[in-house]
């Protein structure tokens, strides 16, 4: 009984924290999306007006398309790269600890610092990337200043910032694979790629799936990169749903509109969250 009480005590702490810092804001946000408020007087219920306002905004479709493209690109680049690095690190016999530290280093930088660092890398004039291209006699790119490359440039920043965490998780998963499997495969004459295909991927299938879903949920909420690097430009090419939400709430003083966008994004992310929960339950079994 006493043991149970201690457990319930710990549970209460967590429940109170979640109630105050997660559930209450979520409920408040949902209510806000159906209200008009100036935070001075009482809020008025406006039905679906806020949703109508944001859906009729010409930037609304752009924001969703940009978010979808960003998510897909972030998966193509940001999902494959950490996994590949983890495999390489796992195969290495020397300097593994040092390289692990180097790969994880970007995670230790505050996101704002990392993003501003890339602002300099992307400078079309003296920026690092164009200097490298110039070294190889290649023409410089406009990076953030072009509608063709701006979104991809943001994905690169995001990938670099989150590379370390993903790699470490994959590495941990890889190290749970029994070494005998690889030894047996090697004796049977399997090369590196066959070992990856027939041992590594099947053995880490569940963690790969979980990471995929978590990455979708995280990248769809992309905000800091467009906020700090492009301000949604050029020509709204990097306006994302989260950035548009910020514009509505804080620049246009339309919290109802911001709330409506947030609610819509939440519904989309809930679908992925449900799948995530099912997958992680399967993994637990």
């Amino acid at each position, binding site marked *: 009984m006493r043991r149970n009480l201690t457990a319930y005590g710990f549970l209460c702490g967590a429940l109170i924290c979640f109630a105050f810092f997660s559930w209450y804001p979520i409920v408040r946000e949902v209510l806000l999306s159906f209200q008009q408020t*100036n*935070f*001075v*007087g009482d809020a008025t219920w406006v039905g679906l007006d806020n949703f109508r*306002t944001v859906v*009729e*905004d*010409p*930037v609304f479709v752009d924001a969703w398309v940009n978010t979808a493209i960003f998510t897909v690109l972030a998966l193509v680049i940001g999902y494959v790269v950490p996994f590949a690095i983890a495999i390489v690190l796992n195969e290495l016999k020397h300097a593994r600890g040092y390289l692990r530290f180097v790969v994880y280093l970007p995670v230790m930088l505050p996101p704002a610092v990392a993003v501003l660092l890339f602002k300099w890398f992307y*400078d*079309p*004039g*003296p920026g690092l990337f164009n200097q490298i291209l110039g070294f190889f006699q290649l023409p*410089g790119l*406009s990076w*953030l*200043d*072009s*509608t063709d490359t701006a979104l991809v440039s943001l994905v690169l920043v995001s990938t670099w910032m989150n590379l370390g965490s993903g790699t470490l998780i994959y590495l941990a998963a890889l190290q749970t694979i029994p070494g005998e499997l690889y030894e047996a495969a090697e004796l049977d004459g399997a090369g590196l790629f066959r070992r990856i295909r027939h041992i590594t991927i099947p053995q880490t299938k569940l963690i790969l799936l979980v990471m995929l879903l978590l990455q979708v949920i995280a990248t769809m909420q992309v905000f800091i990169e467009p906020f700090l690097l*492009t*301000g*949604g*430009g*050029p*020509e*709204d090419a990097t306006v994302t749903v989260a950035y548009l939400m910020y*514009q509505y*709430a*804080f*620049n*246009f*003083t339309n*919290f109802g509109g911001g709330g409506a966008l947030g609610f819509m994004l939440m519904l989309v992310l809930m679908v992925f969250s449900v799948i995530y929960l099912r997958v992680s339950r399967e993994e637990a079994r």
Partner: protein
Amino acid sequence: MRSRILATLLTVALGATAAACGGDGSDGKDGAPLDAGTKVSITVGCMPAKSQEAQRKEWNEDVAAFQKLHPNITVEGKDAFPCIDPQTFQAKLAGGQMEDVFYVYFTDVKNIVAHGQAADITPYLGQVKQNANLDPTVAKVFEDRGKTYGLPRQNYTMGLFYNRTLFTKAGLDPDAPPKTWAEVRDAAKKISALGDGTVGYAELSAKNQGGWHFTTSLYSQGGSMVGPDGKKSAFDGPQGKAVLQNLKDMRWTDDSMGSKQLLVDADIQRMMASGKLGMYLGAPDNATALVDQFKGDYADYGMGPIPGGTGTLLGGDGYMFNPKASPEKIKAGLMWLDFYALTPGQGQLNYARAKTDGRPVGLPQPKLFGQNATGQKDRELRAASANLPVQNFKAYEDAYTSVPGKLEPPQAQQLYAILDSVVSAVLTRRDANIDQLLADARKKADTALARSGT
């Protein structure tokens, strides 16, 4: 029995209503002066931060002097840097943490009034001795349908900010800044020809700042952002096209605007302070930002009137009042602002003290008063304590009264966001179609204006 209960309830309700209408019963909503026996405590935003040692010392001195004059009033400053932040503004209102006298940019005033987030101070303006001496154009910023909602603290009109050292290097006369956009284009070409990454002219194009500067340039060409009734946009006329065509020519034909775009004000200031930028549109206090934040030198900078000179954007900041503030608090707040912000020789306009404290004096800003005796006195006091190379700003100062300052449009932030996209397109895409961009922007702007019910 039932009717007795009803009668009791009615009496209680009427009593409660009467109490609510009467507040604490002292002054009500009349314009009578604050009773010297009424104790009032007010919170005021934008107290200088601890890092601004001299300004903070001066603020504390001013509070002490004011409280000595009015022992019944307590002024509690609230510091923050920057003084206003869009993220915290609404949160402070929602959480009941907003100061009684809160700080705002001119850009946000119309929006705050439209959302009912500031108190109507019209009945209490009698507390402000300097109210009649304010420049009517500046005072108008805080007016809406015959009511007043705040008072200015700083104001400026936009002009051409330039690097005198680069002007000299490029063979241009640093005492004769360009007066027309054609002259700007010509000067930008010469400055960028200096090479080594030097940019002739730079323009903002991100975070709604591109739209803000587009508005300034549009005014300089004689254009307007909205029609006379404010219900439809009007920026797509010949003046708007001329603004964008000029930028397009400088960016792509002359290559005098550098390759890096999507700039915000801090980027441009960094370029100017590092001696790599010739010109941009700005206010006089940019010089202070360049020196304080980017280690620039006042001697390097000069300012002329806005090219074209048909009109310019009038900007600045000031104070509004918490809609929940009592009449007593509003009266006390107005008395503080009158003392601190609007009386020549006192508070922020005490130039002699600022000079003694080693702060820069002499920039032609603020210009709160019109061409009257108060304005004249303020100008004389500033000139007497000037410790900056004020002759570098003479061209701007001389033309100040001849270039009318125009206010920002309704739904400013939304229109600026829409026009950001247009300006960034012209600066990042060689084949940008100006007519098409403006037509698309007009549709979006008209929708935004109609939605807001402006």
